[in-house]
């Protein structure tokens, strides 16, 4: 088990997920605000439900609910900024690189020529904090090229650039 328990020395420079240029393009900090707000909302719902259930059924349900809420809160508040920092993308001449994930790290390379279509999504909550999600689709459903938390201007710029490059480099299946 010694190998499994080796120290976590990869915090700083991880060559495997190193950026192609100087640095990854980060996504907007507003993503953290959004996710915290969503987390707080669900924690509040959980507390309300467990208090009601505790009053109606048994007091220990409230205790369990509160414990879960507390763990979720601490865990989420710690993890959300880390997860946000893990997101990054880079536009190269021929392909787009997207990196994300804290526990399971992922890095996707999507050639512009393989792009079938681009989605820009911005839900009501996302619009409130001023961000949008850009997603690239290829002919493979496994392609994992989603960039959340882009400011609307950047999302529109990226969409137009991707569409233009996709057309210029288009290839058949």
């Amino acid at each position, binding site marked *: 088990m010694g*190998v*499994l*328990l*080796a120290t976590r020395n*990869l915090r700083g420079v991880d*060559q*495997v*997920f*190193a950026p192609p240029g100087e640095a990854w393009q980060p996504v907007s900090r507003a993503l953290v605000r959004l996710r915290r707000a969503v987390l707080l909302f669900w924690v509040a719902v959980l507390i309300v439900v467990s208090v009601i259930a505790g009053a109606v059924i048994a007091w220990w349900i409230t205790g369990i609910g509160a414990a879960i809420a507390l763990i979720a809160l601490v865990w989420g508040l710690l993890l959300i900024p880390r997860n946000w920092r893990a997101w990054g993308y880079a536009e190269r001449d*021929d*392909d787009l690189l997207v990196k994300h994930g804290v*526990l*399971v*790290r*992922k*890095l*996707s*390379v*999507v*050639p512009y*020529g*393989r792009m*079938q279509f681009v989605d820009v999504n911005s839900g009501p909550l996302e619009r409130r904090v001023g961000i949008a999600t850009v997603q690239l689709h*290829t*002919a*493979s*459903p*496994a*392609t*994992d*090229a989603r960039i959340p938390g882009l400011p609307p201007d950047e999302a529109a710029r990226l969409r137009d650039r991707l569409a233009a490059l996709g057309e210029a480099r*288009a*290839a*058949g*299946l």
Partner: protein
Amino acid sequence: MTGEERPDEERRAAGFRGAADPTPAHFQRLHPLTPLLRGWAWLAAAIVFGSQNAIASGDPRRFAIVIPVVAILGFGFGFASWWFTRYGFDGDDLRIDSGIFQRRSRRVRMDRLQAVDIVRPLAGRLLGLSELRMEVAGGGDSEAPLAYLSVDDAMRLRAELLARSAGISADTPEAPERPVHEVPLDRLIGSTVLSGAFVFGVVVFLAIAVVVATGSGRMVAGMSGLIPGLLGVGAALWYQLGRNFGFTLAESPDGFRIRKGLLDTRAQTVPPGRIQGVAMRQPLLWRIRGWVRIDVDVAGYSGSSSAPQTSTLLPVAPYHEAINVLRQVLPGADPASVPLEPVPRRAAWLRPIGWLRLAYGADDRIIVAREGVLYRTLTIVPHAKTQSVRLTQGPIQRRLKLATVSVDTTPGPVDAVIRHRPAPQAREILEAQARRARLARRVDVPEQWMARPLNGAGDSAGNHAGQVETTSGSAPDHAEELDPPARADPG
């Protein structure tokens, strides 16, 4: 007078047809027996349901009235649907107009055609009818089936579709073919006998027999619960056998042709450059005879519900013959000669036994991933067909300094996953694969695989989008392959 009539006519056309684009006059209807063939299953269901209902209510008169009414309504609807469905070529596209109340006009782009199948269900064979299915990438199940056509019409239309799709004159007759492989019946039966499902079925059957012969009443009752499962296994095996009965793989300038089926027959044509990925698989017991099977990814097939039926390139063949087929499917590449590199020993933490067989290799045309100790798999993806490349690293992999690379292809049974490489190497594979895919796309088989470039370069590699690409080392192979006279002589 004419000034008054025309707007009226236009309005009627727009209103009634649902579009200001009426069906051209030269369009054809499907075969007149279509409503009969489509309707008989419904009628049978209605008779069964109606007779049950009549028995339950004890009133046979109701049955005598209901069934003719259902039959007349059903065939009336079927006839109307047949009447309003017409197909034909409109410009370069095949257009199918259908729908009684809500008109639908669908165009199939010929240069995007991924495969053409002629399916003949048993009832259709008795009536001399076939269904023509055109598979287009991203399409769902009912992308564009023409059901039903007469056998001659279906063959003629298939030839025309393939000719147009290839970018040559539409009245070019069907290209000659060269048989590549036939699966004899004894081998097909043998492969079924050596499958896990069959062995499982035999074991269960023996267990039941032993219990029945020796056992007490309660145990027999308990075991009898297994009989429906046993029947299910038997039906699945029988279905598999019937599906691949008389399996023939042939090669032609139009691509690969597959014919198979005992009761329902299916003839598939997959044009050149449409195969997105290949997997050679070997179940445990097939190792006794050295048999393997080959599955392929074809973009159009994935969307249809018949994907497991259509994605088989070879149901069972000896290894050396399968390798020969692979060489033909992947022109210019030889999967057997690509050196494979095993994973480091530390991958045993994640795959205690499987790490022994995990390996990957790449040359300038294909990437090969090997995996599986009991159920062996060799996955091959041509660089030109790479959609995207992904690197994944889980928490344990991070401690072990390993990472997994996935080469994404169109949906289907083939998934190239290169597991547990040393992390720096995984990143190298990721970057190299993106680079190789980019280079390979430039010299890939064009969508219109026989079209000559307009700019008169006079060589085989040309793209319909007008991008004339430089020819590569692979070009002579294609030129030879695309020359019909060279293939007219079998062998």
